[in-house]
């Protein structure tokens, strides 16, 4: 049946403001796909269209083969949606929240209690199940939302900013659980503006800016597209080392740093590191530190938009 999530020329206009501008996206079954972009890039608007909360202005979006505009009920049966903001649940206990949502998902009456307990256990909330929702920490509330989003074993899980506002501990908890769900074959779409989150969790990342997919691929592919790894070498005779390696096939460019080190741009640091050391030994040049860095998704964003994601974040 091809892609589980597919959008073609998806567009959303609010008044005169274009929030999503011809977005094309395809997510295969079992993949974890990240929508990465700064606030206001159109991630949440895209997700709200995919979860049937907003009608597209133009274009089409299909989830599990069903058009979100013409078959919203079919789409809703197949998605689990965890919102960006924690869902307010008033005076209820965690267990009551989950049981009520289980009933809303038409879990048979006699199974509601058991299924709710399973879901609470899955996110580590069973010990806190009978406390009032208002006593929970932000991370616990978020995990409760996640438990609710997974109650009906959705084919597609949509997470809007899954770790936003969470402490490090519960953030890891969420990540592990998301990974568990992936092993079960679930397709996950997650919107984030955390580079490390997209990098660590996603099989593929679509970088979004001004309502369009700017570039899409696996995190590794995207970073490779930026170009070279960077090998940094400090040594006593940088000029001699530079001359010695200048003609080597694995070197693309060499820039002398300020502090007596060399920045060697290479195709592949895995090849370049032993080669640098070999040249050093052969030429009798004593090497100090040899390190390398890989381009981050921030570099990818920079390459394709001319801006740094982190700067955009700070500015907004």
């Amino acid at each position, binding site marked *: 049946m091809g892609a589980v999530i597919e959008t073609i020329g998806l567009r959303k206009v*609010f008044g005169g403001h274009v929030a999503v501008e011809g977005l094309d996206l395809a997510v295969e079954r079992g993949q974890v796909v990240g929508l990465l972009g700064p606030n206001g890039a159109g991630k949440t608007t895209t997700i709200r269209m995919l979860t049937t909360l907003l009608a597209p202005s133009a274009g089409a979006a299909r989830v599990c083969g069903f058009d979100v505009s013409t078959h919203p009920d079919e789409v809703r049966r197949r998605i689990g949606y965890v919102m960006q903001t924690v869902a307010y649940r*008033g005076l209820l206990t965690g267990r009551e929240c989950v049981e009520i949502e289980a009933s809303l998902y038409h879990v048979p009456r006699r199974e509601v209690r058991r299924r709710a307990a399973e879901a609470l256990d899955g996110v580590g909330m069973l010990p806190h199940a009978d406390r009032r929702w208002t006593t929970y920490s932000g991370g616990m509330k978020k995990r409760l939302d996640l438990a609710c989003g997974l109650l009906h074993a959705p084919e597609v899980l949509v997470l809007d900013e899954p770790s936003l506002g969470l402490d490090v501990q519960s953030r890891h908890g969420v990540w592990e659980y998301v990974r568990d769900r992936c092993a*079960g*074959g679930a397709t996950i779409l997650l919107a984030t503006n955390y580079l490390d989150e997209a990098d660590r969790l996603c099989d593929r990342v679509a970088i979004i800016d001004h309502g369009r997919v700017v570039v899409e691929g696996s995190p590794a592919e995207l970073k490779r597209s930026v170009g070279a790894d960077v090998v940094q070498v400090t040594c006593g005779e940088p000029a001699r080392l530079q001359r010695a390696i200048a003609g080597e096939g694995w070197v693309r460019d060499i820039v002398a740093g300020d502090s007596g080190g060399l920045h060697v741009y290479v195709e592949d640091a895995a090849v370049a590191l032993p080669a640098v050391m070999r040249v050093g030994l052969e030429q009798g040049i004593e090497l100090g530190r040899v390190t390398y860095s890989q381009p981050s998704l921030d570099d990818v964003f920079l390459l394709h938009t001319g801006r740094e994601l982190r700067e955009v974040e700070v500015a907004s």
Partner: protein
Amino acid sequence: MTSHPSAVQERAAAHPGRGSAAARGHWAQEVMALARRWWIELLRERLNLVLSIAQPAIWLVFFGAGVERAIDAEVIGTDDYVGFMLAGIVTFTIVGNGISGAMPLLWDKETGYLDRLMSMPIARSTVIVSRFVFQVAQQSAQILLVVLVALLLGVRIAAGPLGLLVILVAAALLTMSVTAAFSALAYAVPQHGTFFAIAGFVSLPLLFMSNAFVPLDAMPGWMAVVARLNPLTYAIEAMRTLVIRGWAASVLWSLVVLAVAAAVCLAAGVQQFRRQTGERVQG
């Protein structure tokens, strides 16, 4: 899905055609699930619960007893002022509950929980209908209490026990109108401040522009015309007739008008709900 072998069957089971018995079963399950939510919240707000149930009885006792001597029995057509006021107090309670009853919908909208609900495979009418079911049940309990207090004060319902049942029906119809109207307002306003400004502004005139305190015959002509357009008037007329005079054909006419008003307000509520859930700007 290998870790959830039952998921596929469950989804197949959760796939009834529209209008089928299974679909109706799902709808009832959804409505009861949300009504359970409203019910738990009501029980947890004890003070709120006690005050809201006691309020109409307190009104009846203090307002009724205090004003009775100042009222001309000729004008209101009976010397039983507490009996006359009973319908007005019930209606007053319905309006108050209509405002407080729309508040959870307002909070759901503002906190985003409405989005969570709308992303689920539930009937769009579930949210408002669950609110009706809950409001009518809560309302009926309050009315029975205030009627009990009225009986203790010496009021006798001329139409008898069956009349009390029809009073509850009239109250339920008005509850639907008022709940739907304030729900529509809750969905229509940009933020809750506007809701409270408008709700506060309309609630008292809604009562004064009805026959809650003064019979239509005793009003200036223009005011009686306005009162005739007010659904509250018909609920009060039906209830008051049943309490003071007993059975009359006009009661049926009032119930028909109330049913029409409920349908119109419900349509407005659903339309505002659709607008709200169809196009929302956020983030």
